[in-house]
């Protein structure tokens, strides 16, 4: 196309400017600041003295940091793979339905995803309430002992994980459904004519063709669960042993409760790098795994 490069560049500059300004202010600048803060002993507001890499050196021997890292990993393990499986199963079920029925059922599964986390918390806190929660009434009916689900140490993280899966699956379900819909129906008809049974069809047709979506869902949930904070924070109201301590929570405590931004920033940098490394790595891994199939 006949274009005038200089004029294009000017127009582009005007078009890109608003975003770029926000991007620099809200993203690039704070990132640089974060790294710089992590080398100081700054409080939340105000400057601190340069302390070199001290904040980083303390991390390996900081039991709370270790707990936070461990709990984060635990939470990721509890949510990512189970969440992916749950979403896939639901999507497979929903994809068999048609028309309005499908839309309605999908809406039921998806609705939690669009709710604010605080609403999710209030609802589940009520459902799981040890005295009045409906789940406990159900346990009573079934003759199971009541379990103080969000209050006990063993159940806390799994409970938050279940709520998280319930809350976020809608998104993965949609992606899986889109993936399933993009498999042409003729492929299934061809398989039917090829005498493939239900299981063969799933294993040899659906699963391999869905692999790109599966790995996408996996990646997205891995990245987002590494950044877990909201649910854990809300469910820990009332004080908890360290079983609630995840990385972002730890950053929050150090910076906002203990007024130690320097130390918090060091953890933030670690988290920052962790998320990037993990997402890049696993994206590559999944691609390899998919490619070999």
């Amino acid at each position: 196309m006949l274009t005038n490069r200089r004029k294009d560049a000017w127009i582009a500059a005007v078009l890109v400017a608003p975003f770029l300004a926000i991007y620099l202010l809200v993203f690039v600048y704070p990132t640089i600041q974060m790294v710089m803060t992590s080398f100081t002993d700054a409080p939340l507001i105000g400057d601190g003295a340069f302390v070199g890499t001290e904040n980083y050196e303390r991390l390996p021997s900081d039991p709370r940091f270790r707990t936070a890292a461990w709990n984060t990993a635990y939470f990721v393990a509890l949510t990512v793979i189970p969440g992916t499986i749950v979403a896939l199963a639901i999507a497979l079920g929903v994809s068999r339905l048609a028309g309005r029925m499908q839309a309605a059922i999908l809406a039921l599964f998806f609705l939690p995803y669009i709710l604010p986390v605080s609403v999710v918390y209030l609802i589940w806190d009520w459902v799981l309430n040890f005295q009045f929660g409906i789940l406990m009434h159900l346990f009573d009916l079934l003759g199971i002992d009541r379990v103080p689900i969000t209050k006990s140490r063993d159940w806390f993280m799994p409970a938050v994980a279940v709520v998280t899966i319930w809350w976020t699956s809608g998104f993965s379900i949609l992606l899986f459904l889109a993936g399933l819909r993009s498999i042409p129906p003729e492929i299934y008809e061809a398989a039917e004519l090829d005498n493939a049974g239900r299981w063969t069809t799933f294993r040899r047709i659906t699963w391999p063709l869905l692999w790109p979506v599966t790995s996408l869902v996996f990646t997205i949930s891995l990245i987002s669960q590494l950044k877990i904070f909201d649910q854990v924070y809300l469910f820990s109201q009332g004080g908890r042993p360290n079983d609630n301590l995840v990385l972002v929570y730890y950053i929050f405590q150090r910076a906002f409760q203990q007024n130690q931004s320097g130390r918090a920033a060091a953890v933030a940098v670690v988290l920052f790098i962790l998320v990037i490394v993990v997402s890049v790595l696993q994206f590559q891994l999944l691609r390899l795994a998919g490619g070999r199939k």
Partner: protein
Amino acid sequence: QETVVWWDFLGGGDGARMKQLIDRFNQEHQGEITIDATTLEWGMPFYTRVQTAAAVGEAADVIMYHASRIPLAVEQGILQPLTAEDWQAMGLGQDDYAPATWDAVTVEDQQYAVPFDTHPIVLYFNKDILEAAGVLDENGLPMGMDSREGFTETLRALKEHGVRFPLGSVTADGNFMFRTIYSLMGQQDGELMTDGEFLAGDNGEKLENALSVLAEWTDEGLQSTYTDYPATVALFTSGEAAMMINGVWEVPTMTDLSAQGQLFEWGAVELPVIFDHPSTYADSHAFAIPANRGREMAPEKRAAVLEVISWMANNSLFWATAGHIPAYESVTASAEYQAMEPNATYSSLTQNMIFDPRSPLAGISGPIFDVMSTYFVPTLNGEMEPAEAVEMIRDELNAL
């Protein structure tokens, strides 16, 4: 016309009383001063918010503060000291307060807040049930209030009588249980901090004793487990729990329900003596003026704030209907106050009150409080051995 922005954390029945007080103040000061009040989530959320807000100059003009937390606040530079002129302007002074109360707001000879009340915890009981179970004595008080064995017997009797929870405890909330446990430590003269060391000597054992009693009750099914604050109140008021350990601030809830005819006969007494002698943990609500970073307070505003505090002190008799014990002695000395029920029933405990250690590490949601309450929930609900909990607590406290 001044607007005084006010933050507190009064959520329950006392919150409603405070609203009435504020409304009255606003009415009496129409055209001069308006209080613009909000109530934030109690505990860590409240203090985190105050702390960050003050750091960026966004805190309220006057805030309610736990006296126990004042040393920490002073260290963080969150509060403005009250000058002699301030006291004068308010018409209040050292003489108006009990020495312990005065000390609680003083750090290095400098006052940082105006005490408003002291608020211990008490034992609420359901007279109807206790009577039916035969554990109500001739004075209409629960039996077995003088020993561990005695009180446990009372609980067992209630259990046998078919009561679901003889004792309602806020076992799901370590923050709350700090009060009960600290009280029980006090009954053994236990101390948290001695010469900068935590749980030194036999103090650890005393903490363990305190935890054991409660854990034992849980084991025997005498106490509600994993119960959060509203559930505890609901269990008691619905008759599922025969007794309840809770703050005096729940008194208005009971009186209100009684007034509506929706409640049984009830009473409140000082905590039972489980160990050596009576002792009850108490803290004090006080009014403080935040040191808003980078924001100078105008003299007019300060005058208005002082007027608010002073007015509140002078009208704290009404606050007593919220269960609390007013800090202003001319109020507690009044005949009206002396006649109030059920306050009179537990007024004896004022002599047995103990406060937090005076340290920046102490106080509601302070580091000590935080560490300890963290381990209470698993211990009180049978997930963790008291000895183990004491061990963890000692380690973590000493790492602070």
